[in-house]
């Protein structure tokens, strides 16, 4: 019998100490209170003023107690449900868990047949949803593109309408504004069986993106209001560039983006206390030569890990970023950049890690990258699971049994554990040279393409209810009607 014994369940990773986190949190409160943010939305400013904010023109300053009140009502743990009731597809947000999925809105897509870069089209949404549904380490779905072959105003509506029937994993939805948010919500509600049922088991999350530095745009705020009024879990995340739209120092950018995100927090919690809220955002550096927001920088991993710890310190989940790259093709750079950020995201326990499948600094979505990163996520998850230490795993008796110069291949202990202790890859090739050689010397990217095509061609996601199919058709018809006079 042991006493006073403490174990690590999984590995331990920490970027910031508690004291440092408190100091950064105080910095966030300072920014919100003393500098304030510009909020380009009249009604939002009214709501915020009602909650105790000081409003002058567009500038909104929020005192610390108002922020803290909102933090107190926002939950740390909750569930986003699979639309079909498949518990394996539910996402349980809470300490020590990280989840992964693609990202929204790149203009381009890598065609999985021709492997060429071209504008994102509607059928790509189907492919992305189908493949995400099948991948073992992808937990939620996002489109990886903005549909270019439908009416511009309906890109988001069509995106959701196309993806929703093709995956039962929760979708993170993106939209332009109120109308298409409503299209999306009606589809989700139809499947859930009504607004009340939806609120009990929300099956999607809404994504809103304000601006850095310290600007809440009309659309982003409008969508938060929509989400709060309809009980949709919400993400409020800026996309800041250290050295461009945020301080060049990691502590500075984390503080600024947190303040930007907290504007959405206060707004959403004021409208609907208890609404699940994800703090953002995408934190990376501006490459001072290429003038891009880099999606492959080591700073992204570092800053996102710091932001995750700050969010958790504040008691709310984080919208993480990883599995993305600045590479223009499926290559070694895409793999190493994506793998590093995925690994650090998993280590830090970012609650929803998105952009798995972003390439070319977010300009091109690639489901091939997602498929490749699925492997890196599985790999990272095995490491994060750590090492279990107990009498059975210490195996002193087994070592005694086998003895010097023996082997463990026949041992019962091996039979008991070899499947759970070891991770088995899908894409990493561990055959010896001769077998690999005989099979055509394929690099991993070839296997990625093969696997992607195979999944896209063969995977059958669980269908939506027939009523939902009908509802989707009606909702989209009404939407077309709504925009028919706009160019």
């Amino acid at each position: 019998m042991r006493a006073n014994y403490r174990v690590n369940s999984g590995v331990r990773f920490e970027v910031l100490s508690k004291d440092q986190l408190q100091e950064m949190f105080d910095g966030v409160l300072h920014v919100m209170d003393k500098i304030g943010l510009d909020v380009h939305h009249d009604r939002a400013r009214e709501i915020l003023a009602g909650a105790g904010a000081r409003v002058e023109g567009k500038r909104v300053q929020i005192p610390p107690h108002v922020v803290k009140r909102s933090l107190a009502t926002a939950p740390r743990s909750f569930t986003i449900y699979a639309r079909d009731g498949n518990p394996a597809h539910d996402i349980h947000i809470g300490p020590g868990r990280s989840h992964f999925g693609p990202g929204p809105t790149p203009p381009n897509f890598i065609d999985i047949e021709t492997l060429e870069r071209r504008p994102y089209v509607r059928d790509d949404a189907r492919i992305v949803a189908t493949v995400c549904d099948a991948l073992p380490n992808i937990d939620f779905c996002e489109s990886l593109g903005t549909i270019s072959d439908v009416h511009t105003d309906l890109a988001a509506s069509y995106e959701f309408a196309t993806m929703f029937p093709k995956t039962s994993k929760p979708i993170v939805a993106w939209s332009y504004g109120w109308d298409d948010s409503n299209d999306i919500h009606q589809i989700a509600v139809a499947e859930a069986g009504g607004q009340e049922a939806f609120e009990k088991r929300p099956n999607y999350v809404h994504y809103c993106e304000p601006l850095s530095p310290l600007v809440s745009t009309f659309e982003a705020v409008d969508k938060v209001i929509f989400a709060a009024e309809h009980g949709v879990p919400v993400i409020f995340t800026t996309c800041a560039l250290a050295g461009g739209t945020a301080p060049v120092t990691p502590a500075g950018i984390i503080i600024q983006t947190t303040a930007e995100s907290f504007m959405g927090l206060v707004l959403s919690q004021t409208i609907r206390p208890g609404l699940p809220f994800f703090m953002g955002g995408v934190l990376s550096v501006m490459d001072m030569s290429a003038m891009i927001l880099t999606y492959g920088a080591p700073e992204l991993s570092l800053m996102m890990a710091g932001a995750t710890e700050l969010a958790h310190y504040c008691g709310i989940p984080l919208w993480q970023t990883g599995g993305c790259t600045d590479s223009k093709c499926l290559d070694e750079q895409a793999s190493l950049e994506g793998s590093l950020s995925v690994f650090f995201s998993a280590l830090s326990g970012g609650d929803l890690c998105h952009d798995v499948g972003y390439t070319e600094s977010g300009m091109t979505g690639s489901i091939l990258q997602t498929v490749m990163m699925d492997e890196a996520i599985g790999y990272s998850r095995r490491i994060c699971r750590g090492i279990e230490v107990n009498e059975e795993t210490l195996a002193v008796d087994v070592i005694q049994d086998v003895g010097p110069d023996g082997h463990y291949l026949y041992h019962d202990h091996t039979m008991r554990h070899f499947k759970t202790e070891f991770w088995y890859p899908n894409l990493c090739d561990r055959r010896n040279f001769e077998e690999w050689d005989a099979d055509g010397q394929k690099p991993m990217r070839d296997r990625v393409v093969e696997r992607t095509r195979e999944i896209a061609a063969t995977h059958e996601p669980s269908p939506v209810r027939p009523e939902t199919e009908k509802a989707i058709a009606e909702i989209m018809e009404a939407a077309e009607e709504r925009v028919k006079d706009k160019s």
Partner: protein
Amino acid sequence: MSQILEQIATGIIGGDIQGVEKLVQKALDEGQEAETILQNGLIVGMAEVGKRFKAAQMFIPEVLRAAKSMHGGQELLRPLLAGDKAGRAGKIVIGTVQGDLHDIGKNLVGMLCEGAGFEVVDLGFDAPPDKFTEAIKTHQPDIVAMSALLTTTMRAMGYTLKAIEEAGLRDKVKVMVGGAPVDAEFAERIGADGYGHNAVSGAEVARNLIEAG
């Protein structure tokens, strides 16, 4: 095919060591021919195991279990089987060569060869050339298999082959080699008859050498 033979095959696949022995005994008690039990039960099961392993549906520890069950069943049948080999695929003398203490690869090959129906004589690791020649004289194997994990100890394979030649035994046995740094080119250079690039292929090569006579 009778039900009991199917059960034996299933037992092999499941690596049920005791179960297979019991079933083989039962089949004998029921009056089945030993040769039938071997061909339509044990070997059928093991063939399936090989197939599943290649398809990544079975893992090495399971394959080794299956091999052991196969071996157990076969031992029961052996006295009843006709012919000088008594149902065996052949006899192998196996060892890790002199100077090399790594024997995990050699162990794997040995176990898989047993599963393939061979009688295996294991000389252990760090086995000098004369230990091999002695063993050939004593056990009269069909095949001598040598393993090495180090580039430096690979040369002991050459020395051993030479010793076998000098003892006038070279034409009595087939010689196969394997191990991480060994490749087909090297095997050819020292005059071995076969090369296995991993444990599974080692067992296959052994079978092919026997079939080729």
